[in-house]
């Protein structure tokens, strides 16, 4: 995973609550056996006026001009502003894959669904929880100012607004560390391989039926 660095990005507002993972990336695109290439199908059913097919070239599909990401003012957006319970539904990691492949690096929302929240950190996508009134104010700012951009500074846990004011945010220290360093957490866990083996040896004594049943 690449290191997560400070950046300034255009904010795109997605003004609906309970955005589910089916909406973020519909099921037909889950048939891919790769981790990449999901960007053109991000929010497929909102973005286009026809039904998308896997492997299709999306450049000539009819686009929905009303959908926010199709509006020129949000071109190149890397900050997604969203409503409560973002990412609810399935465990598909294709959701953060599609968001990052499109170019998003952070999602700001009052709350996130647990599995999506967790999956995002594994893929260099920073989900930031902000109070509902702060989110509401950001929606107003974005609507009022074309090209509205925020600076996301993970190291200092700050979002800097164009007027210089700052929004502080919370992030789990371990997840922050992994994002900033771009760490592979499998490698980290394997540093504790001896502890895992010790656990297994003890567990085999107390619950032997948990081992060697499926062969």
């Amino acid at each position, binding site marked *: 995973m690449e290191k997560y660095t400070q950046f300034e990005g255009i904010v795109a507002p997605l003004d609906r609550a309970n955005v589910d993972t*089916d909406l973020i990336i519909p099921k037909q695109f889950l048939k891919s056996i790769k981790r990449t290439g999901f960007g053109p199908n991000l929010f497929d059913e909102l973005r286009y006026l026809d039904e998308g097919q896997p492997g299709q070239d999306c450049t000539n599909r009819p686009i929905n001009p009303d959908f926010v990401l199709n509006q020129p003012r949000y071109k190149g957006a890397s900050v997604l502003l969203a409503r409560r319970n973002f990412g609810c539904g399935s465990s598909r990691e294709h959701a953060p894959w599609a968001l990052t492949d499109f170019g998003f690096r952070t999602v700001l929302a009052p709350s996130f669904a647990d599995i999506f929240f967790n*999956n995002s950190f594994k893929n260099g996508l920073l989900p930031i929880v902000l109070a509902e009134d702060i989110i509401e104010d950001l929606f107003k700012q974005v609507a009022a100012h074309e090209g509205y951009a925020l600076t996301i500074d993970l190291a200092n846990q700050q979002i800097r607004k164009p007027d210089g004011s700052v929004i502080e945010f919370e992030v789990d220290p371990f997840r922050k560390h992994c994002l900033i360093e771009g760490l592979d957490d*499998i490698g980290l866990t*394997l540093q*504790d391989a001896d502890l895992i083996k010790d656990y297994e040896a003890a567990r085999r004594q107390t619950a032997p039926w948990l081992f060697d049943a499926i062969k």
Partner: protein
Amino acid sequence: MAGKTLYDKLWDAHVVKQREDGTALIYIDRQLLHEVTSPQAFEGLRLAGRKPWRLDANIATPDHNVPTTDRSGPIADEVSRIQVQTLDDNCDEFGIVEFKMHDARQGIVHVVGPEQGATLPGMTIVCGDSHTATHGAFGALAHGIGTSEVEHVLATQCLIQKKMKSLQIKVNGVLGAGVTAKDVVLAIIAKIGTAGGTGYAIEFAGPVIESLSMEGRMTVCNMAIEAGARAGMVAVDEKTIEYFKGRTYAPKGGQWDRAVEYWNTLHSDADAQFDAVVELDGAAIKPQVSWGTSPEMVVAIDEPLPDPDAESDPVKAEGMRRAYHYMGLKPGITMADVVPDRVFIGSCTNSRIEDLRAAAAVAKGRKVSSKIKQAMVVPGSGLVKQQAEDEGLDKIFVEAGFEWREPGCSMCLAMNADRLGDGEHCASTSNRNFEGRQGYGGRTHLVSPAMAAAAAITGHFVDVRELSH
């Protein structure tokens, strides 16, 4: 010191290492694999030159993409075929036991796991699928994970986790006749909302939950994620233990006795403290139907659909208006006014033998209404299908005009050929009514198997209790 919750006990038994930052390395006893969320995980192992930590902790079966019609030829959709083939190839290459498409034991992972005894009480169980909470019905800690974590578990047999908060949902009293586990869980979600359980592990308890069969408890735990909770669970009791007798991968002989002794400790202590408690009166629950595009948009069958103008929360009201527009429905009507185009009985929520029996009891001696374009029954596994056929349920369905299909996820999420057309309504026993979930433009109404069968017979949503048996 207060006693432990079931969740505390399961958590404590699996901590490999507690870290200073509040996270812990948690040992995973079982991983279930299917074709959709595993290919990138296996690829990750290959790229890093890693091997699975423990082969015998894994079991795989294809379910999302498999056709539910004739399987004598290859899967017609090439992309689906490649994905299923990739699972077969990965399991063969790494040495993981898989029930392939033509194996009689193939089925939906969440039906197959318990059926084989690959799911057992006291286990930590994961799968790259959010409905993994199903297995919590057996007093296990089970939850869905993403593909990166699938790879992490394959490589290390562990997950890095932070302990969740605990929520007890107590369903008191006694359920009325014709009211099922599905109605109970839909009523719970309607009450606490789709984010009501976010950050929590839910323990379902109380007389109603205790009265449910294991199949019913699986239905309830299955939809914990629709209430926002990754994990749902039920304490072990006699029914739980009885369920595993003779299952293929369940312990045998002396190990069985030791296991039962341990399993009997898997309940919350009487003085355990939960972070939150929600109570419902089971006797007040009526058959439920979802009307909107979120599993919290649910009404009792005789209730009028809610008015967004009466909703005080503007974000919620806006969501309701969007849902009405998508669903083509209006506030104030009742679901009895709605005609489903198709009926789907299946999915990891409701495709077990008890579900099929409940639907067949309604369908018996009756005919699917001419208003219904298609009514299909998709058993959860090859073994459920066999058992249903042994009981003659297939004949009841076919004589009534239902299609009797091969096992898989099918129209729950429409990754295979089974799907709704644009604008079609469906009475569905599945778990999600999101926009486009069952097909582009499709309109899902979540119901119990008996309610789905009743809708098929009468040609509109109806209170199943009004149909005399």
